[in-house]
């Protein structure tokens, strides 16, 4: 019997739920590992899992300064999609999508991936052309995408202001039916448990304070729980990339840390059945299984590590969601929070070997890290195991800036706040 199943649930219920085992062990760190992964967030945990599951590398430690999943994996708006414009992005995120589609089975953990569709609303003929360009690019790469008319949108998403008199009338919408949402924490816990069952050590409350080096080469880390050595040290610390790199002597890097707020309303009965984004501003909303509307907008626009949002941006987001769904004005905001984004200079991630020998780097996720989690872990594990990138992460190098081969979805240039 699988550890988790309807049957095991029944069996345990009958014994008063006293026999459930911890989702992951709480081991002390060993002095040596084959691979150390710094960062027990979604990407770090996924990397550990794929190292063990795909490459048979199980002598692995995941070092987490707080509790597992305490970074952006647990602070996002849970959207999973591969509706990108540029082929490099489409291929990467579509690889992720395919992993998502079987993830609950693979991990024996229900990550609640709900393929309810992501709908991007366009509000002018020009924007419609932009979205159609994107949808066509997806279709040419074998990814699902459809164009919906305002009437079709109105049927699918009641409550939207589809009137021609709206300040920004809806001209149409790009739908990716296979996209959707997943339960964010479950992804971290599912990967952690699956990695744990394969022998990976998850070590919480273990902050990396420095790097052990042999000449240029990174051979381990110093931590609040002692020195730990490893053949390979991998970083997946989005939000803190600059800070951890500084401890390795890398003082400047093409990343800025910015705070992004997210919001949730009180729980209500089913209201919106897919993820909807507003094109006349910057807003994305979906409804959680508990019933809260989960939504977010733009960055707070300045460098921050504070996980504290500001009020004007919250007001902007509220005004946009009301413009989209005029009935939402009467619902109440329950909670807001902030996450620290690794904003890269072209809006795309970096998954690569380097920048120092023995070091591997996974960072720069901007807004998009959650949906990337499986492919990020998959390709990063590949890169660590084989010392060369997988085809899907080959374009996401650090040297792309030097070469001018940036992957700039937003077309906004090297200004992180605009991505």
């Amino acid at each position: 019997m699988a550890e988790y199943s309807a049957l095991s649930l029944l069996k345990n219920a009958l014994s008063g739920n006293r026999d459930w085992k911890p989702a992951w062990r709480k081991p002390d760190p060993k002095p040596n590992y084959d691979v150390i992964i710094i960062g027990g967030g979604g990407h770090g945990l996924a990397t550990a899992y794929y190292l063990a599951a795909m490459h048979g590398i199980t002598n692995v430690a995941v070092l987490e300064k707080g509790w597992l999943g305490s970074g952006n994996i647990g602070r996002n708006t849970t959207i999973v999609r591969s509706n990108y414009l540029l082929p490099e992005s489409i291929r990467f995120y579509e690889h992720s999508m395919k992993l998502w589609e079987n993830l609950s089975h693979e991990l024996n953990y229900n990550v609640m991936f709900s393929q309810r569709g992501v709908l991007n609303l366009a509000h002018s003929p020009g924007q419609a052309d932009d979205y159609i360009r994107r949808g066509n690019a997806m279709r040419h790469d074998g990814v699902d995408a459809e164009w919906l008319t305002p009437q079709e949108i109105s049927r699918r998403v009641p409550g939207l202001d589809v009137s021609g008199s709206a300040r920004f009338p809806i001209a149409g919408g790009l739908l990716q039916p296979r996209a959707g949402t997943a339960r964010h924490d479950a992804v971290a816990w599912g990967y952690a448990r699956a990695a744990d069952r394969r022998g990976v050590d998850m070590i919480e409350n273990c902050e990396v304070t420095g790097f052990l080096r042999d000449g240029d080469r990174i051979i381990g880390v110093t931590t609040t729980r002692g020195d730990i050595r490893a053949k390979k040290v991998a970083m997946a610390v989005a939000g803190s990339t600059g800070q951890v790199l500084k401890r390795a002597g890398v003082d400047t890097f093409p990343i800025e840390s910015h705070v992004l707020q997210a919001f949730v309303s009180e729980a209500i009965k089913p209201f919106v059945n897919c993820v909807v984004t507003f094109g006349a501003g910057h807003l994305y909303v979906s409804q959680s299984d508990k019933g809260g509307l989960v939504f977010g907008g733009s960055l707070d626009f300045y460098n921050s590590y504070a996980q504290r949002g500001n009020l004007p941006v919250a007001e902007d987001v509220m005004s946009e969601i009301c413009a989209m769904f005029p009935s939402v004005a009467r619902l109440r905001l329950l909670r807001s929070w902030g996450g620290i984004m690794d904003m890269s200079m072209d809006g795309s991630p970096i998954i690569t070997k380097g920048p120092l020998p023995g070091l591997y780097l996974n960072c720069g996720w901007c807004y998009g890290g959650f949906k990337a989690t499986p492919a990020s872990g998959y390709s990063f594990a590949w890169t660590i195991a084989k010392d060369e990138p997988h085809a899907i992460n080959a374009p996401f190098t650090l040297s792309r800036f030097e070469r001018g081969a940036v992957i700039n979805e937003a077309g906004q240039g090297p200004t992180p706040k605009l991505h």
Partner: protein
Amino acid sequence: MSPRRTSAGGSIDRTRTIRFTFDGEAHTGHAGDTLASALLANGVSLVGRSFKYHRPRGVFSAGVDEPNALVTILREGVREPNIPATQIELHDGLRAESQNRFPSLAWDFGALNQLGGRLLGAGFYYKTFMGPVAGPLKGTRFWMMCEHVIRRAAGLGRADYEADPSRYEHMNAFCDVLVVGGGIAGLMAAEAAAKAGKRVILAEQEKQTGGFARWSGETIDAKPADAWAAEITARLSALDNVRLLTRTAVWGYYDGNTLAALERVNDHVARTPKGHPRQRHWTIRAGTVVLATGALERPIVFPGNDCPGVMLAGAVRRYAGEFGVLPGEKTVLFTNNDSAYQAAAAIRRAGGHVAAIVDVRKQIGDEATALATEAGVVPLTGHAIVGTKGGKALSGAVVQAFDADTGRLSGEARPIDCDSLAVSGGWQPVIHLASQAGGKPVWDAEKQAFLPPEPTQRWIGAGAFLGETGSVEALASGRNAGLKSADKRPSRAKLPETAPSALDLTPAPVLEIRGKGKAFVDFQHDVTADDVRLAHREGFVSVEHLKRYTTLGMATDQGKTSNVPGLAIMAAARGIEIPQAGTTRFRPPFSPVAIGALAAERYGDLKPERLTPLHDWHEEHGAEMTPAGLWHRPLAYAGAGETVEQAYIREASAVRRSVGLVDVSTLGKIAVKGPDAATFLDRVYTNTFSTLKVGKARYGLMLREDGLVFDDGTTWRLGETDFLMTTTTANAGPVMQHLEYCLDILWPDLKVHLTSVTDQWAGAAIAGPKARAVLERCVTGTAVDNDALPFMGIVHGEIDGAPVMICRLSFSGELAYEVYCGAGHGVHVWEALLEAGEPFGITPYGMEALGALRIEKGHVTGAEIDGRTTARDLYLDGMLSKKKSFIGSGLMDRPALIDRNRLRLVGVVSLDGQPLGGGAHLVESGNRDEPGDSIGHVTGYCYSPALEKYIGLALVKGGKTRHGTRAFLSDPLRKRFGQVEIVSHHFFDPDGERMHG
């Protein structure tokens, strides 16, 4: 008079009867009631159903901490779900509905979930619903089927799709001192600060100030406490430097001592007066904040503790004291501290009957004993409640001997007959705002409570917020906080007199009684003590894991009653102290805030409209308008029976044939003035402007620092040190900011001033072979012939008395001029041009025709300058000066940017006579179903009246090298596929003979 209403006492007005309905049933209450107090007075104990198990629930608290009694309000034709009945002021015609039940509150199918029992423990959904790995339900299908059912069961109230008819507004306020909380500490603080001359705002979340004094029955300065509070409030209201905000919850403490508050302006009246807001969102910037937010009572967790009829002891006291409502006929109190004794006495004083006081402590003090005596009972010390009886209403409690030191129960459990059970687990200061301000709460082992952190912003605490529970302390700390906020030292003057209390509100460290049956920690989310222990067993032991795994504290009450008990149970399971188990960080909002209130004046008016001087003219002449950023621009002037496509073809043809007129007022216009203006332009443009002669214009190209194209436009040299730069409509703002950045930061030594003059000028482009003839008919004060006004020349003159500036430049490829006049003269000049053009059939044209003309001519716009293209991609290499450096020259030659196989500009011609489509891709393969990789995409298309074909501009790999080749247009989203020829993007008059003519 209802059975539960006392005949006297409290602050309700028994002479005023208010009618309301709950679940369609008519009830009455009194002015001054809340919905909760009125329902209790009517003997309604079942008010709602819980989230997961759909268990029957009643009113649990009397304030903002209410977890159970959530209702939907039907008002002004719309539904407002999830409002705590404790926060609804009763008013005539109030209609409330219970939630999360079907078909009715009393008989709810969802209650079947209770049979699931242990199957539905914390996090059960992570372990199941994954479905089969193969077959029709593989992948995510099975889960999505389950989810469909789960989503309908979850959620609380139902929201409408009808637009909220309310008005919301924003208010900005500034003050020296913001006092949060209008209890006696807050009132003292406000008065002290006001007397010291400070500008004070006092915000109280309830309908009036006084807080606890309103129902405590205490005496201050020989007056009833509520009368004393009313007097100080009246004194404060009379002061010019004090603003009293009631019904105003301060819910957010942001950076820079900026606080957010929500004023419920008109929720307590049947109908919002016209022109007035329902709610008002305050942003208050305060020099200093006095946090006098009080404390909230927390319950003790025990089996059956969610039965309707179980309430907080302080709430029972308040219902008796403020509303004259007894929650039952026979009340049992259960406590770990002395405050329940005050509640017992209050019940007795209001004429109620106290059946027992059950106290986990072995011994109690004299004052508590005296209160028990007054209540008519001998306390059962060393006992605990271990269960309740009753389903939809409490009918009894079960009590057993209990050792608070060991947590052991002993002896026989025996029932006590009661219909009300009042519980006190001690008090937790309301430290949410202090935590939001930054800083970690501090656990006080003696007080068994989290106390405020060290301030990280400018705030001072007062009253029960500090963990002090007596009125004497509140009066003193309130006044001191007020003085300190005014930079004054504590005063030795006499404080208002009140009797010190000898009661011991320090609780025994007992927050859970373990026994058989479900014991709820988080009522609303149905999180039980066993769920917390299950989380512990499975390793979800950090407080954040606990919250996320069990959903403890995530409901609409945000764990106001459950956080501390939940932590205590986890700490006990781990064998550690509460502070080691951690505390969560509080985040805004303190209590839920209407989303519309934060949108405020932008609800219904998201963005301002930007109108050109000719806007009304366009609308009056049948133009279909299209948004362009904030602007509205005419798409085409379709006549009767004409489609937009027919209209633009007609308009564009008129330009090619004779003459047309288009509104170009939206172009960004920046005055660049000063001795270094030319040098400045040389640096920001890729080409040279210092060589431009006065009275001439030049097309310019700007790059970003990363070497990609930023914007283009013409810049006119009006004088030696005086330039007028034009930008694209979309980039007017960004270009201005870019130029200001360059001047302020990169080249502060340059003497240049920038001023946006976009709105100063109305602009009309007149284009077509007859354009000059039209100008000749109406322009005075200057010649407009080829000598006076050559290509890119500028002249000044008048049109029908209005001064104009005319530059001969062309976007359409025709002989064309841009005529600028003062914006206020825009319509006047436009109409004069139309009149002068009448003999030539002058035709106004819109964006579609403008687009068609520019595509024929191969001019680029935003679709090509999309932030990913280089000057070379657009074949604008010639614009890149080799004689000077400029913004972007440092990085524009990186290898991938000069790769020949990049997407580069070409023209495409439809070979099947069908339209192309913006956003369509181009492919090499003619297999419609498997078109293969994209080689590029169409950026703009039109029907070309000049070529009589559908043509377009495209960015394709390799660009020019594909001229003369065939490809296929592939547009699967619009189901279009067809052959095209790739050609030069200069479709029409490539040598420019027409515009130079």
